[in-house]
């Protein structure tokens, strides 16, 4: 019976092609835009998530407080309140996975006839673990390098590209930072831009002690500008922030009423707000697209109502020869569902095509998930049932005698 009904619905769709096509157009545009918008929205979310993951997860940055000299206050990170010993103490706290003291600044690098300005990060090996930064080639310096302030360097991809000829192996080569020669012992995996748009690969990492003694120079030995702290999990972050604050206040012998002489920044918070923004954006895109799906559904209802009126006599004939009310209901409902599903399939193809085209033209990240396709398809079928039901019900409720008399 169902097969026969499907055949009938197919036949009815085929017998008025122009009208069927125009009815479908509503669904095509609706589903197409939902798929396209979701692809763009999810793409943006993916891109942000990708950026966030390059920063490393569950990170705090503890920054030294500002200094004041003759009434001139410097910004955060230029005071000398944080010490390497603070970092070592923080590492002893619960729920802290990695701690890395950092002293960084921009310096000019020279190799052969080429020179390039990059961010020089003086730190300990834990820095790479906390930032989840892989070493592409070579090896990472160890704690002994930090202790003895050896002149070794790990260099980022952008630095490699700008200092070395294509195909040249940088490992074992000697580059100069300011006037100090460094041996390149490893190259870093690419990370891309951070949330601010800064190129994270434009970086050279050297042991902290070397940075402080040979490159930047520090007036107070053992002081450090910032410390990166990684909590064991997102849930542990508030507790870690509290215990780090308490520990540092105690170590710095701050009085109850004194302000902190350091700042704690939560990198995840910035990341979360960026993720939230894209999430809202993709929701908004989806909502706008859903409206077009709704309009498509109303279009189907409209046409089905016209179709019921036009085919009143046919309904009367079918009833006279034995169609029950539910048969008639089913016939028109199936027709509506078939129109929406056919429209949906075309919409899916166009939506995915549009997404791929957008990707090709704009380099925007596109994510077409099975989930969004299934959602679009289910919604389309639902729209068919929902908007097809009223006309179908109207058809089924016709009086066969009246319907047969209808001209």
């Amino acid at each position, binding site marked *: 019976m169902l097969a*026969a009904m499907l055949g009938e619905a197919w036949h009815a769709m085929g017998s008025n092609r122009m009208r069927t096509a125009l009815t479908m157009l509503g669904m095509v545009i609706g589903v197409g835009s939902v798929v396209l918008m979701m692809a763009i929205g999810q793409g943006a979310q993916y891109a942000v998530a990708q950026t966030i993951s390059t920063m490393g997860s569950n990170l705090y940055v503890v920054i030294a407080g500002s200094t004041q000299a003759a009434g001139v206050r410097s910004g955060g990170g230029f005071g000398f309140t944080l010490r390497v010993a603070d970092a070592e103490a923080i590492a002893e706290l619960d729920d802290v996975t990695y701690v890395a003291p950092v002293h960084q600044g921009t310096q000019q690098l020279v190799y052969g006839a080429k020179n390039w300005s990059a961010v020089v990060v003086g730190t300990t090996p834990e820095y790479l673990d906390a930032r989840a930064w892989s070493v592409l080639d070579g090896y990472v310096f160890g704690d002994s390098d930090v202790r003895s302030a050896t002149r070794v360097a790990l260099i980022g991809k952008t630095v490699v590209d700008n200092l070395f000829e294509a195909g040249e192996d940088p490992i074992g080569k000697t580059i100069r930072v300011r006037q100090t020669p460094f041996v390149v012992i490893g190259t870093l995996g690419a990370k891309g831009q951070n949330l601010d748009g800064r190129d994270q690969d434009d970086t050279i990492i050297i042991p902290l002690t070397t940075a402080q003694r040979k490159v930047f120079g520090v007036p107070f030995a053992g002081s450090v500008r910032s410390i990166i702290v990684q909590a064991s999990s997102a849930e542990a972050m508030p507790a870690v922030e509290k215990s780090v604050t308490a520990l540092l206040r105690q170590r710095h012998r701050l009085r109850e009423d004194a302000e902190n002489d350091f700042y704690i920044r939560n990198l995840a918070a910035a990341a979360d707000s960026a993720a939230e923004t894209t999430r809202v954006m993709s929701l908004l895109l989806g909502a706008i697209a859903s409206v077009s799906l709704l309009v498509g559904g109303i279009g189907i209802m409209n046409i089905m109502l016209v179709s019921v009126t036009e085919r009143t*006599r046919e309904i009367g004939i*079918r009833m*006279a*020869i*034995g*169609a*029950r009310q*539910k048969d008639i209901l089913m016939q028109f409902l199936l027709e509506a569902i078939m129109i929406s599903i056919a429209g949906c399939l075309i919409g899916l193809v166009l939506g995915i095509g549009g997404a791929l085209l957008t990707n090709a033209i704009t380099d925007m990240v596109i994510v077409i998930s099975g989930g969004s396709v299934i959602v679009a398809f289910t919604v389309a079928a639902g729209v068919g049932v929902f908007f097809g039901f009223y006309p179908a019900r109207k058809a089924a409720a016709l009086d066969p005698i009246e319907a047969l008399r209808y001209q």
Partner: protein
Amino acid sequence: MADGPVIRVVGLGKSYVTAAGLFPALKGVDLSIERGEFVAIMGPSGSGKSTFMNLLGCLDTPTMGDYYLVGRNVAHMPGDELAVLRNRTIGFVFQGYNLLPRMSLEDNVALPLVYSGITREARREKGRQMLARVGLEAYANSLPARISGGQQQRVAIARALINAPSLILADEPTGNLDSHTGEEIMALFNQLNDEGITIVLVTHEADIAAHARRQVRFLDGHIVSDLLTSELPQAPVSPVIPAPPGLTPTSEARRC
């Protein structure tokens, strides 16, 4: 299948609610039609014969009385059961043929089988058989618009016969046809009746009614006469006018 009359109505009545109040279209009719009969229902407009036909066809339910179709009282059956009865027990032939214009003749003929739950292959097979029975198997895949009115009515008769019904109800089946083609259709009905099929025909044309073996006349919601055709005084039969050569009968309606 139960023995006894195909149709037995007892005190059957139908009233319509109109703006002017309750209007009784059929005022308590008793009638019995045996298996194999060929009955013509006659009467002027408003005599109640159409109301009676709708009740016989299970398209409507009576407001009083009982209707036994093949032994079952169907007067108060719910709509879906009536639909099944219409599908299995009754074959309809209408004045305007009522074929579905976008379906092939074969599919039109087999349409009742869709609602009997028959498979597609079996429907095709049966549809072709029935078309052959009315001599139109050559047009199985044509659309109704491709054939003449008389041929369309033959297709409609094939459709009415496909479920081997106990009863054929024909409502002015020759009303849209020229008299020559009308005679052909009546000859087909006579042939079917000879094969034992029960036929009830509504007409207001005496020469059409004359093909039936029994004529029931309605007036003002009552049966006023119920006679065998052989008992009736010979009605003046209008001469058969042959169609001019080269002119095919059309489905052009001659509304009465």
